[in-house]
């Protein structure tokens, strides 16, 4: 508004307003276009909940399959060279329904798991079974927290527990590598030849 506008008497403004039409008919029917815009929005909440639920189910199923396969595996005889352990493969680590932990984390995890698969046969069979059961337990715990996060996204307690669960898994993998590598004496320990 300029200074000149403010000087105009209010009467002329009222008269101008009076001359305006009370309503304006639209040139075309806008509703179909508006409805088309509204349609996807009504579907979105369903989709938003579908992905986390699907991811949670996938994680639980994957975890259960891994657990079942690990528990079914027979121990190798102590005095014979144990057969090569099947490569430990992990589902991509997720952090709740919408987040992935990224390729760098997955690569580090796979690398540790592959290295462990090469060394795991050097462990005494009871220790190996314990280790496999506990790795399955760690994965089951991560899957359970992920499923809870799908129901309660952004929960700080769940996020903290999940982060620590992933860290613990890496720590266990790294720890077992260290335990099977000897104490820096250069040679690795093969326990399958020992009378344990």
């Amino acid at each position, binding site marked *: 508004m300029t200074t000149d506008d403010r000087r105009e008497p209010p009467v002329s403004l009222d008269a101008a307003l009076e001359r305006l039409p009370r309503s304006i008919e639209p040139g075309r029917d806008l509703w179909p276009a508006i409805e088309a815009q509204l349609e996807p929005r009504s579907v979105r909440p369903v989709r938003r909940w579908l992905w986390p639920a699907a991811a949670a189910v996938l994680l639980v199923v994957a975890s259960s399959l891994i657990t079942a396969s690990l528990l079914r595996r027979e121990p190798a005889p102590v*005095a*014979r060279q144990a057969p090569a352990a099947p490569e430990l493969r992990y589902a991509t680590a997720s952090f709740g329904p919408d987040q992935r932990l990224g390729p760098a984390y997955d690569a580090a995890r796979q690398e540790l798991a592959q290295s462990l698969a090469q060394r795991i046969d050097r*462990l*005494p069979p*009871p*220790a190996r079974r*314990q*280790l496999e*059961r*506990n*790795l399955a*337990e*760690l994965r089951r*715990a991560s899957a*359970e*927290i992920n499923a*809870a996060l799908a129901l*309660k996204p952004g*929960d700080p*307690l*769940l996020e*903290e*527990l999940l982060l*620590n*669960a992933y860290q*613990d898994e890496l*720590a*266990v993998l790294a*720890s*077992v590598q*260290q*335990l*099977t590598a*000897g*104490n*820096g*004496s250069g040679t690795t*320990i*093969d*326990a399958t*030849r*020992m*009378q*344990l």
Partner: protein
Amino acid sequence: MTRCSRAAFFHRARLGWPVLAWLAAAPAALAGTPIEERAPADPAGQVEVSNTAGSVVITAWPRNEVEVTGTLGEGTERLEFSSSGKLTRVKVVLPRQSSRVAGTDLVLKVPAGSAVAVNTVSANVTATGVRGSQRLQSVSGYIHTEAAAEDVECKTVSGNVKVKGSGQPGMLTVTTVSGDADLSRVAGEVNGNTVSGSFVVASGDTSRSRLRSTSGDLGLRGRLTPDARVDLESISGNVRLDLEGPVGAEFDVSSFNGNIRNCFGPPPVRTSEYAPGRELRFREGAGTGRVRLKTLNGDISVCNK
């Protein structure tokens, strides 16, 4: 016994006679070879021990030398024993090709101020009176040791860990996969991590304690120092904190799906009308310490005497 199997039995027996005769003639060859090694050692040197199966027993003594006795297991290639400068190495060497090797029992006496590092697979490890730092690792053997003021680190897969402290503050780190840990009279900083093992910690004055488990139960009993930081966390294991003496700390306790029981402070509250979670936050006394207890499914108990 059928005719066929009887014939096979006698055939095997005929083949077995020479073996039995050799066994009778050479009993010494079957018995474990005695070990007797000794070398001067630095009073604050490092002693490294590696033994796959059998046992390792280390005792501190007031002499500046390392002595190794015990029995070398049948089938073992040799015992490597070397001492140079501050480092003494004891290593049981296995042959490259052998179907069966018996465990070796090592008994070491080391200067009390030595730092010791032990690595085994199934051999049990026992250390007594060592005042230097300790790094003890075993896959399935147990580890029993005493902690003084120096750092102690124990690591196993399925072996249990027992540490008896002296009440002097130090740093103790215990990591197991499924092994249980029983830590008594420890003081200073305690770090524990397990998947399914149960950890029981009885401390004197606790300044820093951080225990974590996936499904194992965690228990800590002790006095909080004014600046204490206690952090116990489990996914599906139960967490229990029993405090002694005056308590001055802020408490942050929460469980997503478990119960919270506390003998002091306000009652826990539900985090949501529709979710099962509970939490408890309060300040006790001066409130200079920090206590965090967290679980997903496990129950939490916090009490003072």
